[in-house]
């Protein structure tokens, strides 16, 4: 029925909008080019609804009652959340939502073992949405957005396999339960290596990051699931690197597809490895 029209993933660290100019010019260019490619991919694919799957930085629920995936059912999504504004330094944005689509996908997700919930009110968005929305200029594309906020850091965290399976459920629901002419895109938001609030806060594990991106480009999903585990991500930077689990959700939804590295930069002041990828989708075979 509906088709997955575009599949992307990119980092969202707040430095990219809050202090982009602290980085060497080459790195700034790498980031801006990657995000321009994301913008173009969304436009050229004629995507109607874009799922932005990204970790919640404990912005929307108490840590003692924390869902694994939160679907944003609002008619419009406004951001960034007030407290994050001085830090992110992005313009306020309003994006159309897609409540009907979100509701169907939420219901499908309830069948997975993860804890899911749906929220009709405007969610609080930090860098998870604000950075891609701003750098890829999503508002100008006219695309409707369904935010899917993910738990990557409050135990028990759904691991890489659970996230991949969750992605498969989303992919199946898109292909079988959404209207035939609807074009649905997926953007995983988060990563790469970083350790927010921990002793290695100032460090980036560039070796891990390049290895991970190479693994994705190589394209063997079983290998990714076996080697790029939640524990391995935690080793590369606890509490932050596991944001890459959102990329696993996208991969589960689309299955194995050729993957292109859109660029990578390791800039100390951003306190996070920054990279992006795009998967090539065959429009004639948008499913498994």
């Amino acid at each position: 029925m509906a088709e997955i029209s575009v599949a992307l993933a990119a980092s969202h660290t707040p430095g990219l909008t809050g202090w982009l100019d602290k980085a060497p010019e080459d790195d700034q260019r790498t980031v801006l080019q990657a995000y321009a490619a994301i913008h173009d991919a969304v436009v050229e694919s004629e995507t109607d609804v874009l799922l932005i799957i990204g970790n919640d930085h404990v912005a929307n629920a108490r840590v003692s009652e924390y869902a694994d995936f939160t679907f944003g059912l609002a008619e419009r999504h406004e951001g960034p959340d007030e407290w994050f504004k001085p830090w992110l330094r992005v313009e306020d944005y309003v994006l159309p939502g897609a409540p009907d689509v979100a509701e169907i996908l939420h219901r499908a997700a309830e069948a997975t073992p993860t804890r899911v919930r749906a929220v009709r009110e405007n969610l609080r968005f930090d860098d998870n949405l604000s950075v891609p929305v701003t750098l890829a200029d999503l508002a100008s594309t006219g695309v409707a957005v369904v935010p899917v906020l993910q738990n990557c850091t409050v135990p028990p965290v759904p691991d890489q396999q659970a996230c991949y399976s969750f992605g498969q459920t989303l992919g199946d629901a898109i292909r079988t339960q959404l209207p035939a002419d609807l074009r649905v895109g997926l953007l995983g938001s988060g990563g790469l290596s970083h350790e927010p609030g921990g002793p290695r806060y100032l460090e980036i594990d560039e070796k891990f990051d390049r290895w991970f991106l190479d693994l994705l480009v190589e394209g063997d999903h079983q290998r990714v699931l076996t080697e790029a585990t939640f524990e391995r991500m935690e080793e590369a930077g606890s509490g932050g690197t596991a944001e890459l689990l959102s990329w696993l959700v996208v991969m589960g939804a689309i299955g194995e597809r050729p993957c292109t590295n859109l660029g990578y930069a390791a800039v100390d002041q951003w306190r996070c490895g920054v990279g992006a990828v795009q998967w090539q989708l065959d429009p004639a075979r948008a499913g498994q």
Partner: protein
Amino acid sequence: MALDFFDPLLRTNDLVQDLKWDEALRARFENSEEEVLAEYPLTEEERTAIGQRDFKRLYELGLHPYLLSQLARLIYGTGEKAGTSGAATALIQSLLGDEYEKYMASRGA
């Protein structure tokens, strides 16, 4: 692993979230921190650790690392200080204690 100490029942977790979500409370915290801490259902240990900016102690008591870094930003500020590592530096200094100098030397120059 940074999540080893995490305790979802530690009330400081809730305090940091309330400070993020409630502008009025945040303003009161900036002006009369002790009053806000006294009113909030915290243990004395938590109050002391917050007052002393003992991030390491808060981490050990079970404050979630995100909320720890956000508390540092609440205390040391964001805005025009964004991109400087004021809050991050204070946090690392606390977490690493005596090891801090050696650690920074191994990274620096």
